[in-house]
């Protein structure tokens, strides 16, 4: 099992100009490793809809990678999205499922099927082209560049220890840069940022 920092630090080094969509327990930890204008926090938004938001971005911007840092609880809320992603024919989406087996934001209550659900098998069954599962930091760090190369869609199951990230808020006093604007401002800023390229 890894820490979130052990997942995010190597990823931040190789993400290049990829758009990164975070949600729930990934939002604040990712901000410790990146302050890119191409980071988007799906926070103060709809639960379980980061992966499909990222799908829309990936379809709109086929020339660049879109990485979604989803949680297992969030993924369980919209498992059909695995099928939608494949059916959409998207090739540039890399979907992480950070499997901590809990709803961390609300106090680490266990998710249904904690430890029993095989997200890698679900992704293969949905038709994902490439599926990875990592539980050990060195193994992951040695493969993360490969994960981002080539065609997707890619699903990465990363076994991580539950953290203590609490409920997310947005506002000018937030320490994480991408939580300071409202969700609407963030969405419009990202659109403008992507229009530059």
């Amino acid at each position, binding site marked *: 099992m890894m820490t979130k920092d052990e997942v995010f630090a190597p990823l931040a080094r190789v993400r290049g100009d990829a758009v990164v969509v975070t949600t729930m327990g990934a939002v604040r930890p990712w901000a410790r490793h990146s302050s890119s204008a191409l980071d988007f926090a799906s926070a103060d938004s*709809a639960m*379980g*809809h980061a992966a*499909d938001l990222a799908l*829309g971005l990936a379809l*709109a911007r086929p020339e660049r990678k879109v990485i979604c840092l989803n949680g297992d609880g969030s993924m369980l809320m919209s498992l059909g999205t695995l099928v*939608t992603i494949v059916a959409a024919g998207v090739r540039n989406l890399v979907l992480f499922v950070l499997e901590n087996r809990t709803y961390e934001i609300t106090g680490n209550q266990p998710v249904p099927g904690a430890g029993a659900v095989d997200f890698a098998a679900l992704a293969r069954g949905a038709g994902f082209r490439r599926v990875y599962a990592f539980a050990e930091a060195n193994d992951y760090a040695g493969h993360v560049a490969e994960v981002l190369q080539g065609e997707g869609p890619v699903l990465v199951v990363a076994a991580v220890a539950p953290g203590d990230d609490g409920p997310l808020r947005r506002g000018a006093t937030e320490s994480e840069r991408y939580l300071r604007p409202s969700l609407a401002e*963030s*969405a*419009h800023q990202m659109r403008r940022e992507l229009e530059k390229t």
Partner: protein
Amino acid sequence: MASARLIIEQLCGCGITDVVTLPDNASKALLAGLAARADIRVVGVTREGEAWAVASGLWIGGRTPAVLIQNTGFLESGDALRGTAMRMRIPLLCLLTYRGYATLPATKERLASAPVDGRMLSRPEIDSCALLFEPTLQAWGMPYDFLHDDADVAKIPLTVEVARLCGHPAALLISRDTT
């Protein structure tokens, strides 16, 4: 009834690039027409809540999507709509098919702006989804108009403009099967 061909011509004229959808009978002809087009991409979803998130992502990425779902799915997808397109102020064209429109009771019994009488939800001659549809749209603050037949197809660019001016989704309610 509205012609799918005319609707698609208007969508193209408005620069719609993608239609995010889950099919129903009313949209069957429209989706068949869209499938034959190369200039509008159809993105199918497994549940209507996904439609709002996918469309929002498309818009953030620079596209001009529309959402095409049935009113049943609209009701099911409320929090996804709230937390994506509404909360993000995405100017989306929404084509919402109106299952049960013909079963709605006369105006004396039901006004679109009146609170729903819960007892009416169990009346077998009324489609309860239809009964809840317009009050729910109003609760979301989503502007809407009707697309009953060919004469109403011209409302599509107007609704796109309403969405742009409001800075959030605006809807056309398709009350009969497209042909």
